């Protein structure tokens, strides 16, 4: 039978300062890891959830993003006439769009950051059925009006309804705010297609054409038809795949964060090890006594491992508490494909919290293993003779 848990708990509470210092060290490591995971989780959520499963995004062949893609307007007619396109009110669900990038001042960064402007026809809005206008109204054709994503409205200067944004050839009235459910569209500014084409002098050249297929089989057929049409030199990409590929923009941050967390974890392991070695040394006679009473080396090993685990779980809890204020915090990260910023919320999901606590437990178990093993293996006599 193992030693009672109260034995471990009391030993930890008796050494309050040491326990807290070690737990804090582990907690900081967990906080760094959780912060990174919350960032990556938020960004993944923003990008992975974007797109409709039946949407095909047509761009120029080998274009990595809409921003660098160029499509002549004549190609739109050709695409519109392909079979397998879903109809809405007798109209094919096809949306020719222009995507460009501008610099806007941000509340906490006067130098500003790049933001995507998307020019699209009314059909383009109707095709994004999962977004809703949370404030104001949609822009009117022929007017210098824009609707901003909610992330833009919150984080950029003069981006609220009633404000005026200055880009291109002049000012634009902000008439609405859209909520795209924490997807990438929340980080865009939408305007009428022709208004943007005129303003950016791109009357003949579009960025992409969004097409909705009538079913998954038609989607594949449509994708093949676009790729096989030698006149167009275009390719279709599933919209969900297109945004999924952009999650790669978070990879360097993820790598760096995990790298830092791992280095800190090694340090925290040593801190836990140091604490546990000190505990074993201080309690050598106690260990000897327990062995004389009949507790096996295995019981002693287990007791010290449990103590180390409790210590690290406390650290994990501290780490979670430290990082909890980040949950829901809005931020943005530069996207190396769109050359603009993608806004996202830090998301501290239960899975991420569990990962942090698990990470802390591993640190505790690794840190406690050698001291516990030493305690279990020490001969009873030499333990009893320790002062």
């Amino acid at each position, binding site marked *: *039978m193992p*030693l*009672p848990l*109260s*034995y471990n708990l*009391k*030993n930890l509470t*008796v050494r309050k300062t040491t326990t807290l210092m070690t737990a804090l060290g582990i907690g900081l490591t967990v906080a760094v890891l959780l912060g990174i995971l919350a960032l990556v989780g938020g960004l993944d959520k923003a990008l992975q959830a974007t797109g409709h499963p039946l949407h095909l995004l047509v761009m120029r062949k080998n274009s990595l993003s809409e921003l660098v893609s160029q499509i002549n307007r004549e190609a739109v007619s050709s695409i519109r006439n392909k079979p397998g396109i879903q109809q809405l009110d007798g109209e094919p669900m096809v949306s020719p769009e222009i995507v460009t990038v501008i610099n806007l001042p941000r509340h906490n960064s006067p130098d500003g950051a790049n933001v995507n402007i998307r020019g699209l026809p009314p059909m383009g809005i109707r095709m994004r059925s999962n977004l809703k206008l949370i404030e104001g109204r949609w822009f009117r054709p022929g007017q210098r009006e824009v609707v901003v994503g909610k992330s833009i409205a919150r984080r950029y200067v003069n981006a609220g309804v009633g404000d005026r944004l200055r880009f291109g050839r002049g000012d634009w009235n902000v008439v609405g705010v859209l909520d795209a459910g924490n997807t990438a569209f929340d980080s865009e500014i939408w305007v009428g297609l022709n208004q943007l084409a005129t303003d950016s002098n791109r009357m003949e050249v579009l960025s992409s054409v969004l097409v909705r297929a009538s079913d998954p089989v038609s989607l594949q057929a449509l994708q093949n038809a676009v790729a096989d049409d030698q006149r167009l030199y275009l390719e279709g990409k599933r919209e969900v795949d297109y945004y999924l590929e952009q999650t790669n923009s978070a990879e360097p941050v993820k790598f760096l964060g995990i790298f830092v967390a791992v280095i800190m974890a090694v340090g925290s392991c040593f801190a836990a090890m140091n604490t546990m070695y000190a505990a074993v040394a201080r309690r050598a*006679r*106690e260990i*000897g*006594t*327990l*062995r*004389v*009473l*009949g*507790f*096996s*080396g295995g019981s002693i090993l287990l007791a010290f491992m449990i103590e180390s685990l409790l210590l690290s779980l406390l650290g994990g809890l501290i780490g979670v508490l430290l990082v909890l204020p980040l949950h829901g915090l809005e931020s943005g990260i530069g996207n190396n494909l769109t050359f603009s910023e993608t806004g996202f919320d830090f998301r501290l999901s239960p899975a991420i919290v569990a990962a942090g606590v698990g990470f802390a437990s591993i640190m505790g178990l690794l840190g406690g293993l050698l001291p516990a093993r030493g305690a279990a293996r020490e001969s*009873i*006599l030499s333990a*009893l003779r320790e002062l």
Partner: protein
Amino acid sequence: MVNDLVVEATDLHKEFQRDAFQVIALQDVHLTVQKGEFVAFMGPSGSGKSSLLYIIAAIDRPTRGRVKVLGRDLLQLKERAMADWRNENIGFIFQTFNLIPVLTARENVELPLLLTHLSRQERAEHAATALGLVGLSDRMDHYPRQLSGGQEQRVAIARAIVSDPSIILADEPTGDLDAQSAQEILTILSRLNRDHGKTILMVTHDPHAARHASKIRYLEKGQLLPEGAPQPE
């Protein structure tokens, strides 16, 4: 009577390495202890008293020789079996009490019972009984730091007897106590021997303590002097 032999040690020899030196702790020790005896072992420091006690307690093993305690050849036991055997058969009392400082008197006394199949309720009852036997019923929830030295040693005695072992081994149980506390401890040990039939083997430097034993054996330079031999100079 052979059946009443509790300890039967033959040709016990114990050597150990201390730094560069080979130390002989015991040599050619022959010892028998009858059931119900109270034996005191005396001798100068380094004479091998504690080494003999640790071997009988299955805490240490002899370099050579045989030792049977309660009919069990201790050298045949593996590490884990020795731990179980100690728990079932031996109550050990240390000079420095060796109580677990973060546990209360009751929790300390209950420790050996955690290795038995007793329920929580039964463990609590046994611990209360043992503490009552040493006169500490009113100190059960005290921590060791809240007790005097004599009280700590009485808790240690309660811990030693709580699992009702056949043998109680005491290594200088009065060595760290004042005269009055020492007398209380010796009185308890005498009572355990006389009233409860416990076999007690006690190492001591104190002739007064030794007088409570029914038999005194002397050790000198690792050798057990013959029974009835006078105390060495």
